[in-house]
């Protein structure tokens, strides 16, 4: 019995000492971590799967921003990749991995609105900021997901803007809208369709998965009265095929695409229009060095990468500001710094600050027309 008492007393003593030691090292760690500013951020995107082209571009620009910011701020932030495949279930799995990894203090992504809807509650539970560079569904910033931010505008701006442009430019009597069966696409369609109907335009609403590559049957339904075909899609090469099918069947309708179709070199149907949440940064003089670096390292790119650069930069700057203030970059500190973001300019050619719901203040969309050489020309009034 006496022996048990000695063992218990020794164990208790060891625990107390361990506790003291832990506390001491923890205190040292606070200042060390703040001084070194070493932490991790996550990056969620469709790195494989049908829209991997977009995801890879997003990853490249996240890496580029991180390297630039680490050098400029003398931080040691590392990037942890998570492949969501634009699939809400996969995004949930990745988010669970990120939220249970205490080294990760904030996340860039995910790409799709449907993914944000799936992971928003998980991030909210651990008070972790996540900033998307491409999720544009209007409902995401209505308070359901308090830790969500985006550096791009929303569908409720894009849908009406595009619909009104189509009405005023083409004066169509009939048009076709083909959604891609994803939340992004159907959200845009529901913002546009009522405006067309109110204008007395006959709308043929079709729907096709982006895993399908044969559009000949849908194209056969385009009549001579159909002036415009609206494609709120995410796979540019599918729109290119749609355009080829139109030509093959001698149909003259103009294609009006959104975001994902901004892909010079891939979607090149002359006379088509593309509205995009992101600008063409190759036309922004201040971005010339980023454009040169990105092109040299990764080749051609579209409009999906630069907003992710901006999102990563916001997160990097938030972490750096926490460290500069002598604090440890915890999730709580970082989200507070993200909310206070006020960048006078950005890679996107516009200031970045957020509304209380996480929306970009004064966000806008950009409209391009493709000429006969496949070049995208910004329509100045957009």
């Amino acid at each position, binding site marked *: 019995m006496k022996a048990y008492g000695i063992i218990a007393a020794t164990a208790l003593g060891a625990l107390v000492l361990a506790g003291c030691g832990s506390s001491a090292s923890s205190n040292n760690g606070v200042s060390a971590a703040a001084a070194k500013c070493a932490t991790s951020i996550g990056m969620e995107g469709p790195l494989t799967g*049908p829209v*991997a*082209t977009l995801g890879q571009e997003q990853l490249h620009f996240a890496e580029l921003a991180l390297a630039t910011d680490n050098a400029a701020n003398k931080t040691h932030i590392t990037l942890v990749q998570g492949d969501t495949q634009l699939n809400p279930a996969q995004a949930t799995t990745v988010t669970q991995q990120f939220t249970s990894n205490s080294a990760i203090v904030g996340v860039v992504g995910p790409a799709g609105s449907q993914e944000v809807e799936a992971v928003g509650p998980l991030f909210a539970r651990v008070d972790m900021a996540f900033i998307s560079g491409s999720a544009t569904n209007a409902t995401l910033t209505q308070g359901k997901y308090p830790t969500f931010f985006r550096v791009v505008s929303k569908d409720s701006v894009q849908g009406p803007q595009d619909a009104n442009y189509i009405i005023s430019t083409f004066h169509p009597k009939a048009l076709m809208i*083909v959604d891609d069966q994803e939340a992004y696409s159907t959200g845009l369609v529901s913002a546009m369709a009522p405006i067309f109907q109110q204008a007395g335009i006959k709308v043929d609403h079709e*729907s096709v998965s982006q895993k399908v590559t*044969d559009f*000949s*049957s849908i194209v056969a339904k385009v009549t001579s009265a159909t002036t415009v075909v609206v494609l709120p899609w995410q796979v540019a090469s599918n729109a290119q095929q749609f355009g080829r099918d139109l030509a093959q069947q001698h149909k003259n309708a103009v294609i009006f695409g959104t975001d994902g179709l901004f892909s010079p070199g891939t979607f090149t149907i002359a006379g088509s229009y593309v509205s995009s949440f992101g600008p063409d940064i190759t036309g922004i003089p201040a971005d010339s060095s980023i454009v040169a670096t990105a092109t040299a390292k990764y080749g051609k790119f579209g409009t999906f990468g630069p907003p992710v650069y901006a999102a990563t930069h916001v997160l990097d700057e938030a972490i750096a500001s926490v460290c500069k203030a002598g604090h440890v970059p915890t999730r709580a500190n970082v989200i507070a710094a993200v909310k206070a973001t006020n960048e006078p300019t950005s890679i996107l050619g516009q200031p970045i600050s957020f509304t209380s719901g996480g929306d970009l203040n004064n966000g806008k969309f950009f409209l391009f027309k493709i000429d006969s050489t496949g070049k995208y020309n910004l329509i100045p009034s957009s």
Partner: protein
Amino acid sequence: MAFFFQELVNGVTTGALYALVALGFSMVYGVLKLLNFAHGDLYMVGAFVGYFVIQWFGGPAALSIPVPVVLLIMFVLAAVLVGLLGVAIERFAYRPLRDAPRIAPLITAIGISFFLENAALLLFGAQYRVYNTSEFISFSSGIQIGSVSIDAVQIMVLAMGLVLMVGLRLLVSRTKLGKQMRAVASDREAAEMLGINVNFTIAATFFLGSALAGVAGVMAGLLFNQVTNTIGFVAGLKAFTAAVVGGIGSVPGAMLGGLLIGIAESFITGYISSTYTNLLIFGLLIAVMLGRPTGLFGRPQLRKV
């Protein structure tokens, strides 16, 4: 009426592709009772082979040799390489599991499918590769009947599909190899006792089925222009549906099933709405299964008692 014929042409063309892929599915199931879920990915590999042939000869806008020769090389090379890949898959992934419980090769097939898909991602990247068919086969080289357009690629796909299907039917019904394939499909052990080289027959079946998928991949590239590592999934799913509707294991069943699915898709899209296409196609599958559980051409399995 023109609309009807345009949709019919579209449907038959797509159906011919489904039929070619479904044939491979059905043949492999016939001899091994294996649902080879990697089959759609062989179609994807074939499409990539065709793409790289175009690039090797200078790209779509500047082919260095005549177009018919390029097309011939594309089809032959895709058939041979994909056929050999199919044989390798059978040899190293399925043969060791031939006597294992049926779930083991099934899971292996799914594994092979993901392996091929991700290997293509690593090798070729995520971006879509584009055939740009119209740059070397003009739309105007087809037929225009009233407002119905049938371009040269569609005509070629239909003709080749027909020739290959008839050729395969003759091979299975009239040649020694065909007899061996039917014998192995009927009773592998009995066929072996009769002196048939079962391993060779199964390998030949994989070669033929995979080669057809490779050819279908090139056809799809020419028709739909784009190739990426994930295109095999939908093609495989549709071909599997076609094979089941036609009666899995039956060569004419796979042909009919493929054409039926292609035409049904086209008419549902044209006359109802593309929104309901998959719903109605798979509804059709369920209806056929309820009415004829063995498919249109399938035979009920005899059970020894």
